[in-house]
């Protein structure tokens, strides 16, 4: 991983303001980002956070308000979309309805004035890659959603772009197909070696496919990192909340430093590493994933904590605990759930190193 990385895309101080009449909306605010070559990079965020705007700026569909974007060290913001060596897979595919599958895929190659034998060879190659060769005479309206998705992918891959931009390409597929396409996309990316920039609001998609993720909110980047970094060490409460289930427990710092401790409002005292800027007596928010918490039946009747609810998930269950009027969520594998029932008194165990103090 630590070989010399080539910068595929550098986004420097990019700001984008949409002005409509008198009102203006800041879609991106001073964004800095570097995407490496051969990387599956995901822009993750809720709808309206600016992730699609960023993608459209890279593709050239929007004018940049401030800052610059470099593609393999070349500045591209002055180039129109048709002069940028990137291709896009659109959210609703945007396949040309008047052209058949083959013509759709060959479209980019033809515009690049490749010679006919090369166009034919490359088009068939890509169609085979996405397993759509047999349907090359079909019109887009004769295809299912998943098939249209493959054609859109093939069309964008055919001209061998330096970077492939994907704008929520899986969002209009049903769950089963979506999961299958995740694996396929990831395989495709590895096989072709093309840099993928993938936009999604689905954290599961982001975690399963990405090499790195940038979490975006309100036009600003909240955190950039590998999926496990983002999941295990979210940089702030937004990231923690947005990715997966989470407990954000308020408390007070009891002891500073590496081996510090906190007293939670929920009544428990836990030991964890305290960041330097937090002093003894400061109010803190402690972050802990529900699956990291262990629970045992309490032997004493004085226990603070009781089970207030179950949510059945199939392979696991969410258990809601009430402790000193604070709600704590726990996720347990299904075989362990049957030991507990609603109203049981509980002792909570917070394994060390799984809780951390988190910024607002």
């Amino acid at each position, binding site marked *: 991983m630590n070989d010399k990385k080539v910068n595929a895309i550098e986004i420097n101080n990019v700001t984008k303001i949409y002005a409509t009449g008198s009102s203006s909306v800041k879609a991106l605010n001073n964004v800095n980002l570097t995407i490496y070559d051969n990387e599956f990079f995901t822009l993750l965020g809720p709808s309206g956070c600016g992730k699609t705007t960023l993608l459209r700026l890279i*593709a*050239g*569909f929007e004018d940049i308000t401030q800052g610059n974007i470099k593609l393999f060290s070349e500045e591209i913001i002055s180039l*129109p*979309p*048709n*002069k940028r060596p*990137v*291709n*896009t897979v*659109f959210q*609703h595919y*945007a*396949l*040309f*309805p*008047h052209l058949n599958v083959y013509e759709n895929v060959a*479209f*980019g190659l033809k*515009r*690049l004035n490749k010679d006919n034998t090369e166009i034919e060879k490359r088009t068939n190659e890509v169609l085979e890659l996405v397993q759509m060769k047999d349907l090359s005479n079909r*019109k*887009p*309206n*004769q295809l299912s959603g998943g098939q249209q998705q493959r054609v859109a992918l093939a*069309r*964008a891959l055919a*001209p061998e772009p330096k970077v492939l931009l994907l704008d929520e390409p899986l969002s209009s597929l049903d769950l089963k197909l979506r999961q299958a396409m995740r694996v396929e996309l990831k395989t495709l990316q590895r096989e072709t070696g093309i840099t993928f920039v993938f936009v999604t609001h689905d954290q599961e998609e982001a975690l399963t496919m990405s090499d790195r993720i940038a979490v975006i909110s309100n036009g600003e980047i909240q955190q950039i990192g590998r999926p496990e970094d983002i999941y295990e060490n979210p940089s702030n409460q937004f990231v923690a909340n947005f990715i997966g289930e989470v407990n954000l427990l308020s408390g007070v710092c009891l002891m500073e430093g590496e081996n510090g401790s906190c007293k939670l409002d929920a009544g428990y005292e836990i030991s964890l590493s305290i960041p330097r800027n937090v002093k003894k007596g400061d109010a803190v928010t402690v972050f802990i994933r529900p699956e990291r918490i262990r629970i045992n039946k309490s032997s004493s009747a004085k226990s603070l904590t009781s089970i207030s609810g179950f949510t059945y998930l199939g392979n696991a269950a969410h258990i809601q605990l009430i402790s000193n009027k604070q709600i704590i969520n726990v996720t347990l594998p299904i075989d362990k759930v049957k030991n507990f029932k609603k109203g049981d008194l509980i002792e909570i165990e917070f394994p060390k190193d799984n809780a951390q103090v988190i910024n607002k």
Partner: protein
Amino acid sequence: MNIQGENKTQNRVRGLLPLWTVIGIFMIGPLLVMAAVSLMESNVYGGVHFKFSLNGYRQILFDTNLFGEIEFNPAYIIIIGRSFILAISATILSLIIGFPAAYFISRQSNKVKNILIFLVTIPFWTNLLIRTFAWIIILGKGGVIESSFNFLGLLGDEDSLNLMYTNSAILIGLVYSYLPLMVLPIYASMEKMDMRLLEAAADLYSSRIGLIRKVILPLSMPGIIGGSILVFVPCLGAFVAPDLLGGGKKLLLGSLIQFQFSYARNWSFGAAVAMFLLSLVILVLFFNAHINKRHREYETHG
């Protein structure tokens, strides 16, 4: 089930009865009358004798000379040809002006779009005759164009551009009258075009011209064909612009038909030419339906 189904069909037929009656009386009826007239003998004082005759149709191609011999007469074929050339030129010209106009309108914001479309339809609120007279003022001797040329010193006081009473004047009049009929259908098909397709094409290395040729043009083809027919058909039978702007010097189909019914009192010949024109129009419409079927295949789906 069957009985219910039959009842349904019967109800549908009954429900549509008023519509069919209106269409029958006001549209199909007159056509049948004309078809009948075209197959009868003309009365020199107007009207027809109730006697079967193909003279009306024969007259399109043949004439009886002084000696009572039947000989080929190209005069009407020339009129038909001239009408066709003029109608085709008017259609092409309307397309050249209308296509970019429709594209421009479809690219505007909703508010501006509605205003522009309203402006396009405004001429329809004025009588065609009056609008055509306006062109006489514009094109005529000492008219708007000539006096501006005079003012700019491009034209001497005594000279004239001789714009009026030419084929060009007719063409201008026709294009002006029927341009909205070209703009509106093309606009309609561009309006529902998915903008992301244009982005996709640009993303796939299409230049501006490639974008128009490979995406916009094929996708607005139904509108282009519809508009062309809406312009071509009335241009073929037009008589207001040819009479007023062309001075009636060179007869066109529309004027020819009108002339047969009014002054020449040769109803059966007029009706025959009208039927001939109608059959040509139907031919064009069939051709259009054939092309449109291919387009509709992908248009109706999402």
